[in-house]
């Protein structure tokens, strides 16, 4: 339905030494569920507020279906935001809260009532219409806020940390609900989070933002397997980083020569880093691997249920590998072993 395009977006605040949002570019396709992921204060909410028109950008453009949003006042944009702390209007009951957007449009009262009921059913909260927000639990408030946002069929739905104020159990439930509703209504949705796991579970694509700058915008899978830089890799739980150089079109790392199949080989600098997920590393007592096999020593073994984590010293580089616990109980601390970094799993980054 609605393609969102963000171009060169910049926002400065007084008293900040860097831009709160620095030259962000994003293309979000209609019907996608996109996560803005980044640590606290990185500018996520600020971008959302510029999309809604509550902040004016200092530079750049935001277009929805090829029409710039900037000249349009907030209330006419059809972009609805659900705020971090729900913000249900305290002196209105649930029905009045949910019906607010339609009332603003001057919709007939009986139609509003009908739609309110539909929306409350959608968020699985029938029968609480007459209660005041104060009488609701956190999870219920969140659902009401969602219903209120969806009632006027927004072109774009923005959710600011929809799950951060809920406890673990409610969070799973709410996540499912958001996913089903988003798919059912097929509304283009951006949600903000600082939890990478949440982003991975929900989003079609993740925009990773640090210090107001967009680091990467790609699928969750790529963040694990093909991170753009060390910072991004670390944010998604990457722990293995190896210094390397390109010499004669070959990769020479600090643990030895390395075969490489990544599709970004042409973009890599002479100095680079290699990374690999712990679960993709293989180890064995015998040298049974045909490439990228290095000798090392186990420095610690940590059993954590289904998986066991091994810390390995390879030529003074510390690597971590995670293996299924079953059937590999023959390796222990101080054992000399061989480490295998499969060439289709290892990934190079410039910084």
């Amino acid at each position, binding site marked *: 339905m609605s393609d969102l395009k963000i171009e060169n977006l910049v926002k400065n605040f*007084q*008293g900040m030494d860097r831009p709160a949002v620095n030259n962000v570019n994003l293309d979000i396709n209609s019907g996608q569920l996109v996560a803005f992921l980044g640590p606290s204060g990185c500018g996520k909410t600020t971008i959302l*507020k510029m999309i*809604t*028109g*509550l902040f004016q950008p200092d530079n750049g453009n935001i277009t929805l279906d090829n029409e710039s949003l900037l000249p349009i*006042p*907030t*209330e*006419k*944009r059809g*972009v*609805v*935001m659900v*705020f971090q*702390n729900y*913000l249900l*209007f*305290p*002196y209105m009951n649930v029905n009045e809260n949910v019906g*607010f*957007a339609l009332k*603003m*449009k001057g919709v007939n009262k009986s139609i509003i009532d009908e739609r309110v009921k539909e929306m409350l059913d959608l968020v699985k909260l029938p029968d609480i219409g007459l209660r005041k927000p104060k009488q609701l639990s956190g999870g219920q408030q969140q659902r009401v806020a969602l219903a*209120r*946002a969806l009632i*006027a069929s927004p072109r774009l739905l*923005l959710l600011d940390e929809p799950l951060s104020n809920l406890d673990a159990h409610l969070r799973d439930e709410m996540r499912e609900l958001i996913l089903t509703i988003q798919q059912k209504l097929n509304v283009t949705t951006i949600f903000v989070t600082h939890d990478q796991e949440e982003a991975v579970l929900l989003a079609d694509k993740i925009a990773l933002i640090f210090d107001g700058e967009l680091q990467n915008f790609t699928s969750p899978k790529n963040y694990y397997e093909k991170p753009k830089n060390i910072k991004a890799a670390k944010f998604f739980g990457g722990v293995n980083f190896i210094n390397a150089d390109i010499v004669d079109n070959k990769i020479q790392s600090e643990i030895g020569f390395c075969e490489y199949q990544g599709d970004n080989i042409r973009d890599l600098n002479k100095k680079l880093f290699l990374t690999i997920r712990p679960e993709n590393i293989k180890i064995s007592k015998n040298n049974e691997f045909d490439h990228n096999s290095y000798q090392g020593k186990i420095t610690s073994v940590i059993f954590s249920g289904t998986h066991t984590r091994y810390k390995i010293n390879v030529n003074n580089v510390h690597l971590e590998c995670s293996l299924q616990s079953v059937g590999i109980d023959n390796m222990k601390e101080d054992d000399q072993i061989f480490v295998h970094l499969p060439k289709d799993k290892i990934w190079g980054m410039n910084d």
Partner: protein
Amino acid sequence: MNNNLKRINIYSIYLGALILILPLIAFFINAFSFRWFYPQVIPKELSLQAWVRLKLIPKPGQRTFEGFLDLWASNPTVIKALVNSLTIGILVTIVSIIIALPAARVLGLLNFRFKKLIIFIMVSPTILPPIAFVLGLNINFISIGFSGSFFGVCLVHLVPIMPYVVLTMTGIFANYNPDFEHQARTLGANKTTTFFQITLPAIAPGMVVAALFAFLVSWSQYLLTFLIGAGKVMTLPLLVFSTASSGNPALTAAISIIFIFPAILILVFTSKFVSGQSGATSGFGKI
């Protein structure tokens, strides 16, 4: 032992309360017994004569509805002063709230340079005594013709009220989340609707308290009204003062009772809002 202590404690509270309302008791006895001579504690007879002399209650025999209307329509001094006090108080309160609203919002929600200095300038009338500015201002007002005018009196009442209203409402906005407004805007409410449906209901309780006490500050002004009014604008405090100085206790008491009536009413209405934290109380030093 502990029980005895508790009892003493409670009795001393009762005693304190009794002492505190002694003046009030004296006001009522004086106002409703015209000849309350020393050493009577309980007056010999009750009388409405003070009220009759103030032309607030008709003479016996004329106490019908029309009798009251006729008497009040003759515009006795007390009624005139009462109307003046009310009009000035209400006008000044409304004006100060309207002026303070945007300023308080900015002060409560935003940070900017010179904010401390501006707050300092705003609060200075609550610390420095009115006599320091009103003598000089009076001469100015005489020269531009504001002296002795209703308008001049309203203007000068703004000085003690403005800081109080701005500060109280700044406190309200400091605890106010403007994202509620943003939420309403993204849901399709325009600026006007947002102000009346979201902002106003949220700040209304605090604003009402600020307004009531702003009114009381104006209602209690003696010195400013006396000087700037130059004898031409008679208000209740002026009347209380002059009657008290001339010495008839019954008349003084009767006027005082009218004078304190709104104060008690407002306290009853707001007692649940009034708390030291709200900042609303800081203005009471000025009444």
